[in-house]
C-alpha cells in the first residue's frame, strides 16, 4: 500500500510544474486566454514536443500508455497554473473517445496527429435543453445510403473554435432522453452545413455553439456502434471527471496557500489578521476540505487503475466533494482576501471562477449526489 508517484510519474509532474513556473505567469495566461484561438499554439507545440499529448494513448499508437495516475499528476500542476490550452478537450475527451471507440481505422488516422500536435479535437454533447443529462439528445442523425445526415444544435462546445474535428452525439433512435439510440459521429469542422457562434466563459475558455444543417457524415465515421454511443460517452466522461478533479485539486491547494500567505501580511487593528483565532479555525476548515478532497481523488484514481466495480460511485463521490469543498475554499479565499478578493487584478477570482466551471462541467455537486444515491439505493 503506497500513495507515492513512481520516478517516471514524478518527472512528468515536475516538467509540467516547471512549464507553469517558467512560461505561465499570470499575465501570459491572461494573454493566452484572450487570444483568438483562446490559447497559445506555441505552448501546444511545446506540449507535443514534451510528449504530454501522448500520455493517455497506447504504445501501439505511439502513446505513452499512461493511466489515471499520470493524468492526475499532469492535471494537478496545470490547475495550479490555470492553463487554458485545450489538453482536456483535445487529448482526454476527444482523444479518449477515439481511444475507447475500438475503431482502428479512425484511431490510426487521428491519434498520431493528436500526439504530434497537428490535430485539435472537441466533443459536442450539450444542447440548449439538456442541462447535465448526457442522454438528453435532440440532434437527429438519419441514415441516407452509406451516410448519415445530421440536423440539430450543440451548445457550449469546449474548444469548438480551434477544433479541426468534432465528435457529435446524435440520436439515431429512441426518445429524447433515452440512453439507447445515441450514436457518436466524427465530423470534419469544415463539413458543409456547419455554422458556429463563439463566445467566452468566465474561466477564460473560448467555446462555441454549433448548428448542424443537413451535415453529411460517412457511415464509417461512427465511433463505437450505432445506437450504442452512451456507454462510450459515460466511460470517457468518467476518466475526464477524474482529470478535472485533479485540476481542481491543484487550484484548491493554490487558493489555500495564497490565502494563508495573504492573512499573514494583511494587517488590521494593528496585527496580522492571521492571528485571529476565528480566521485560523476557518483556514483549518479550508485545509481539511482540501485534504479530504485529495484523499477522495486518490481513492477514485486507485479505483480507476484497478478497474474496481464501484468506480462509478467513487467518481460521483469525488465530483460531489470537489464541488462542495471547492465552493467552501473559493468562498473563504475571497472573503479572507476582503476587498482585494473582488479585484480582477488578483489571481484569486480567476482560480475561483475555474473551480466554479469545473463544478458545473458534467454535472454539479447536487446532480452527482443524486447519481450517487441512485447507485446506492437502486438495489
Amino acid at each position, binding site marked *: 500500500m503506497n500513495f507515492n508517484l513512481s520516478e517516471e510519474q514524478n518527472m512528468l509532474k515536475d516538467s509540467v510544474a516547471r512549464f507553469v513556473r517558467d512560461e505561465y505567469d499570470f499575465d501570459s495566461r491572461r494573454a493566452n486566454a484572450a487570444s483568438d484561438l483562446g490559447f497559445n499554439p506555441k505552448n501546444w507545440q511545446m506540449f507535443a514536443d514534451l510528449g504530454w499529448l501522448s500520455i493517455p494513448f497506447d504504445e501501439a499508437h505511439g502513446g505513452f500508455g499512461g493511466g489515471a495516475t499520470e493524468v492526475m499528476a499532469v492535471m494537478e500542476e496545470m490547475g495550479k497554473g490555470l492553463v487554458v490550452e485545450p489538453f482536456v478537450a483535445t487529448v482526454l475527451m476527444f482523444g479518449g473517445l477515439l481511444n475507447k471507440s475500438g475503431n482502428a481505422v479512425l484511431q490510426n488516422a487521428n491519434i498520431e496527429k493528436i500526439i504530434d500536435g497537428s490535430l485539435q479535437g472537441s466533443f459536442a454533447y*450539450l444542447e*440548449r*435543453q439538456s*442541462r*447535465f*443529462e448526457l*442522454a*438528453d439528445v435532440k440532434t437527429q442523425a438519419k441514415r441516407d445510403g452509406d451516410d448519415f445526415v445530421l440536423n440539430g*444544435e450543440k*451548445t*457550449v462546445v469546449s474548444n469548438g473554435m480551434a477544433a479541426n474535428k468534432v465528435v457529435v452525439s446524435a440520436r439515431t433512435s429512441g426518445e*429524447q*432522453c433515452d440512453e439507447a439510440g445515441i450514436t457518436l459521429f466524427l465530423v470534419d469542422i469544415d463539413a458543409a452545413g456547419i455554422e458556429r*457562434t463563439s*463566445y*467566452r*466563459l*468566465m*474561466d477564460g475558455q473560448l467555446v462555441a*455553439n454549433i448548428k448542424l444543417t443537413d451535415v453529411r457524415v460517412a457511415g464509417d465515421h461512427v465511433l463505437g456502434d450505432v445506437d450504442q454511443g452512451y456507454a462510450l460517452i459515460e466511460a470517457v466522461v468518467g476518466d475526464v471527471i477524474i482529470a478535472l478533479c485533479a485540476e481542481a485539486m491543484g487550484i484548491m491547494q493554490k487558493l489555500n496557500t495564497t490565502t494563508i500567505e495573504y492573512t499573514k501580511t494583511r*494587517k*488590521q*487593528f494593528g496585527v496580522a489578521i492571521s492571528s*485571529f483565532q*476565528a*480566521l485560523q479555525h476557518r483556514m483549518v476548515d479550508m485545509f481539511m476540505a482540501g485534504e479530504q478532497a485529495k484523499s477522495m481523488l486518490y481513492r477514485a484514481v486507485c479505483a480507476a487503475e484497478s478497474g474496481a466495480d464501484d468506480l462509478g460511485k467513487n467518481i460521483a463521490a469525488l465530483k460531489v466533494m470537489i464541488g462542495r469543498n471547492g*465552493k467552501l475554499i473559493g468562498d473563504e479565499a*475571497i*472573503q479572507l482576501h*476582503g*476587498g482585494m*478578493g*473582488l*479585484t*480582477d*487584478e488578483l489571481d484569486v*477570482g480567476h482560480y*475561483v*471562477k475555474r473551480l*466554479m*466551471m469545473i463544478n*458545473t*462541467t458534467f454535472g*454539479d455537486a*447536487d*446532480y452527482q*449526489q*443524486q447519481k450517487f444515491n441512485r447507485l446506492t439505493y437502486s438495489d
Partner: protein
Amino acid sequence: MDITFSAEELAFRDQVRVFLSESWTEDLAARINGRDGDYKAAQIEWQNKLSVKGWLAPGWPVEHGGVDWSVTENFIFETERSLAGIPDVVPFGLKMVAPVIYDFGNDEQKKRFLPRILKNEDWWCQGYSEPGAGSDLAALKTKAELDGDDYIVTGAKIWTTYAQYSNWIFCLVRTDSSGKRQDGITFLLIDMDSAGITVNKISSIDDHHSLNEVVFDNVRVPTANRIGDEGKGWTYAKALLAHERTSIAAVADSKRRLRDLRELLGQEVSGGRALSQDTQFQNRLSNTEIELMALEYTELRVLASTADGKGPGVESSLLKIKGTEIQQSIQQMYMDLAGYYSGVIHGEDTEETIGHAFGHSARQAYMYGRAATIYGGSNEVQKNITAKYVLGL
C-alpha cells in the same frame, strides 16, 4: 403583538402601488438594470420622478423635504418598491451624507447641499475605506493639513462605488495623528472637480465598473466644507453605520429575487422534468425562504423598537450578517439553476444566439454579491461587535 395593517395603512399601500406602476417603466428598468453607459441618466430620471412626488427622501426631517411616514409606512413603501423590482435610490447622497449634513452640518451647509441632493443635481460617493483601512476604518491615513482657510488633503480612498459618476465625495480624513486613533478624524465634503483628484478604475470580478480608487494629491478643501468640529468626524460617521447595516440586509429585495427564482425553477427542465419538482432544489429554496421569513420579522422587530424610540441598535449586526448570507445563497441558486450557462459571458452575442436568458446576469449578481459580506464592516467584524456589545463577551 399585532402586525396587521390598519385601514389607513392599507390605503397608503394602494397609493404607493398606483404611483409605482404608473411611474416605473420597462424602458427605465432596462436602462438601469443594464448598468451600462446610460445607467446614470436613467437612475436620475427615476429619482426625479420620486422627487416630484415628494417621496425621494421620506426619512429626512420634514422641514428639509422629508415625509413623516411611520415605520410601518416606510416598511410598506420599501416592500412595494422591492417587489416591483425597482432598485433603491443611490444611497450616498440621500441616505448617507444628507443625514450627517442635517444632523451635524451648519445652516449654510444645509442650504447649500440638501436642496441639490433632493433635486438629484449632485451625485455623491463615499470616501471611507483606504488600502490600509478596511474593516479597521479607524486606521485611515489620508491626511488633511490646515493652510489658511483650506485643508490640504493628501492620500487615497478605495472601493469607492460610482466615483466615476460623482461630482462630490464625503470623506473621513486624519487631521491629528497624536492620541486615540478614533480622535483626530475629520468629516470633509470635497468637490470632485478640485485640482489634484484622480479617479482610477478598479476592474472587479463581476466584469462591471463600479469600484474605484480616488487619489488626493494636495487637494485644497475650504474649511467651510468641514462638517461639525475638527476631530469629531468619527462620531458623525458612526451614527450612520447602524442604519447602513440595516439597509444592507435588503430583506424585501431578497423576497423578490426568491419569488422570481421559484418561477424560473418551474421553467427549467432536467431530463424532461421541471426542476420545481426536484427535491434538492426545493430544499435549498425552502432553507433560504425559511431563514428569510424569519429575517423579515427580525427586521420588523428592529423597526418596531425604532418606533418605540429605541433605535435600530445592535440587532442591526444580525440583520446584516443574515441578510447578506441569504442574498449570497440566492445568488448561488441562480448560478446552479443556470448550469453551464452561468459561465457564459455574453459580450456582443445575444440571448438568442447563445441560447440562455439569465446565466450572464446570474453570474454578475453572484460575483458582485461577494462584496456584501465584506463591505459595511465585514461579517466577521459584525460578529465581534455582537459578541462584545450584545453578549458581553
